[in-house]
């Protein structure tokens, strides 16, 4: 059960990375980041079967931070949309050297 959970976690994390790299819609990039966070949560819960409850406490804290991150990130996306009238991440290159 533990190694299967870690396997699924690795696959889900990889899918999230591919989503971040291939999509241009900022909302979907952001959802891919959420998917990666979920994959990490899965491995934390799986390893908490072995090493005690600290992993589950950490998952609860990760969910808190994910909620905060989602709120701030979506506010930034709304601000970007007001500026560019699109959420294409290729528009966001103001800091490029």
């Amino acid at each position, binding site marked *: *059960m*533990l190694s*299967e*959970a870690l*396997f*699924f976690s*690795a*696959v*889900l*994390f*990889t*899918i*999230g*990375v*591919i*989503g971040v*790299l*291939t*999509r*241009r*819609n900022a*909302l*979907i990039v*952001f*959802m*891919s980041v*959420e*998917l990666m966070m*979920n994959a990490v*949560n*899965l491995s934390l*819960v*799986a390893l908490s*079967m*072995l090493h005690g*409850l*600290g992993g*589950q*406490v950490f*998952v*609860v*804290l990760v*969910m*808190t*931070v994910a*909620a*905060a991150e*989602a*709120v*701030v990130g*979506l*506010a930034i*996306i*709304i*601000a970007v*949309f*007001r500026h560019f009238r*699109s*959420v*294409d991440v290729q528009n966001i290159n103001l800091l490029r050297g």
Partner: protein
Amino acid sequence: MTLFYQFHFYVFGLFAVASALLFVTRRSPIAAALWLVNVMISLAALYVMMGAHFVGAVQVIIYAGAIMVVFLFVVMLLNLGHADAIADVRGKGWRLGAGAVGLALLALLLVAVRQRMPAVTVDARPVNAVAPLAESLYRDYVLAFEAASLVLLAAIVAAVVLAKRSART
């Protein structure tokens, strides 16, 4: 671990992976968000099967319920138009690079998790799974718990400041 339990663990795990694949390949943000909800609910089932009942419930309520609803709300608020009209996927070079990076990362992670894991047993009967977690959270990790409340407060303030339409424009 009974065979029944093992079988359903595989079913929900494969369901999560399949939903994730559908999630990254959908063009419409709404469809992608709904498939992501599917992933999260499957993961909640995995959590419950691994004995983390509270985390499974929180996963459904917070992630699949609250966070994804906020995502859907923003998707509908922005009203991006028809999905096919937007060139959403990056070019061929990006896709090949992403595939290479994904394969390399998957190989790395699978090598890392391939080592023999000790067999763990989870009590399939309903147990009081919340009390030990609460004890750990409010005793050993109480500082992190309070810090999380500060993070939430800062996020609320930041969201209001960022999303507020400024008076000048």
